[in-house]
């Protein structure tokens, strides 16, 4: 039972992220199957789907980590298969599991990333300080990342993606492993930034879609099964329950 929004919601917005027929096969298995969509500024798009649905693989192709089998992503007018460096420079990306160098402190780690992003001296320090405040990691900023709790590690990863104040953020499970208070902090941050940025997050927590997303996309077996606002999705089920829609849509996949 595919659910798609009636109106073409993004027509009047600036299209800064355009996914065109993205497909990825590993061996004989199609992990992502002809996925196309556009996202504009002011949108927070939530990728929903069961584990192994192709959410992370899609994100990895958008940011130029994996090469698509076919199709491409256009980010800020740059085709990721032709000019991956331009795409990497303009996107903020939080990989799944928020990997970071365990022997570095958050300050050293963020300093390194800020350097690679082209900032030096006072500007670099100011950028690092800004994201440390935004993600509220001041208290742990001088201890090795390997000693941090899962929640802090996740926020260090988030901080890293925000250093260059990108217009486009791709966040793979940004709230995974956070306690309810930390989740609230990160969700508020995403919702806030979503007003002037284009954000794509992946999650398997349905309440999160309700809490932060302006648009939800259900992905199963590499295909887009639904693409609508959370409210529209809920209207599809009699009970107004997102869980029910999710189960219905992904049941046959």
């Amino acid at each position, binding site marked *: 039972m595919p659910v798609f929004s009636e109106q073409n919601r993004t027509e009047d917005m600036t299209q800064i992220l355009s996914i065109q027929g993205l497909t990825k096969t*590993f061996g004989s298995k199609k992990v992502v199957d002809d996925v196309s969509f556009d996202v504009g500024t002011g949108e927070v798009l939530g990728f929903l789907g069961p584990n192994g649905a192709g959410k992370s693989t899609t994100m*990895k192709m958008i*940011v*130029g*980590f*994996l090469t698509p089998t076919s199709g491409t992503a256009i980010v800020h007018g740059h085709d990721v298969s032709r000019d991956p*460096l331009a795409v*990497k*420079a303009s*996107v903020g*990306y939080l*990989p*799944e*599991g928020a*990997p*970071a*160098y*365990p*022997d*570095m402190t958050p300050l*050293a780690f963020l300093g*390194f*990333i800020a*350097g*690679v*992003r*082209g900032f030096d001296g006072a500007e670099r320090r100011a950028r690092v300080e800004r994201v440390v405040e935004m993600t509220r990691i001041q208290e742990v900023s001088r201890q090795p990342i390997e000693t941090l709790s899962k929640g802090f590690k996740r926020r260090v*990863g988030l901080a*890293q993606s925000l250093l260059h104040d990108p217009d486009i953020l791709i966040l793979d499970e940004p709230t995974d492993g956070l306690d309810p208070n930390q989740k609230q902090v990160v969700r508020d941050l995403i919702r806030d930034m979503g007003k002037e940025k284009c954000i794509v997050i992946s999650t398997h927590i349905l309440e999160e879609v309700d809490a932060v997303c302006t648009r939800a996309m259900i992905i199963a077996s590499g295909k887009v099964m639904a693409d609508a606002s959370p409210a529209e999705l809920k209207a599809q089920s009699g009970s107004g329950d997102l869980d029910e829609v999710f189960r219905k849509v992904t049941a046959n996949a």
Partner: protein
Amino acid sequence: MRNISLVFKREFAAYFATPLAYIFIVIFLALAGVLTFRLGGFLGREQADLVPFFEFHPWLYLFLVPALSMRLWAEERRLGTIELFLTLPISMTEAVVGKFLAAWAFTATAVALTFPMWLTVNYLGNPDNGVILASYMGSLLMAGAYLAVGSMISALTKNQVIAFVVTTSVCFILTLAGSPTVLEFFSSWAPANVVQAIGNFGFLPHFQSIQRGVIDLRDLIFFGSVIIVALIANAIIVDWRKAF
């Protein structure tokens, strides 16, 4: 250049973030000393040169260089940081070269710390310091070749122990490719030009001629080519296997 230097600094500092750097340097210096004085008979020879010291460098590198190169890519893979690293606006060349140079600079630091050996021989006699300088350069160039091969192998796995063992084995073959044992094995059945080609691939003869103080362009080109070819292969492997 900017990105190479940023990657270089991060990698170089990473060696010193764990005890690895200090353990490596202490063991390198201790082994170099033991081999030179005991096996090499440095004092008994009564000759003012560092031949017994440099002679053992290939064998020292054989076990110690893979310990430095094994983490270069395997660790990024295991930690998942490779996904972060390769989605930063850094080109593959900058990433590979930055990491390699950091490992090489670290090796150079360890080798430079053998300077008391040079002081000793100058105190005891009048050695040809030109030959010693050439030997140091040759030794470093050879270490670079071992490191480049090790970095390439490190890119194949997420297991550092596997990277270590495979690198040691491959470097062992590369070291000995020009030795009589290997050449005799091949000369019994392979055509003469093949045997010669294999012989030319050995690290030892190239190092030995530099060590004699003869800086032959061909030897420099040999080690330089090994480094460049291994690093190109390294970049291709990282690109090919990054998803696994």
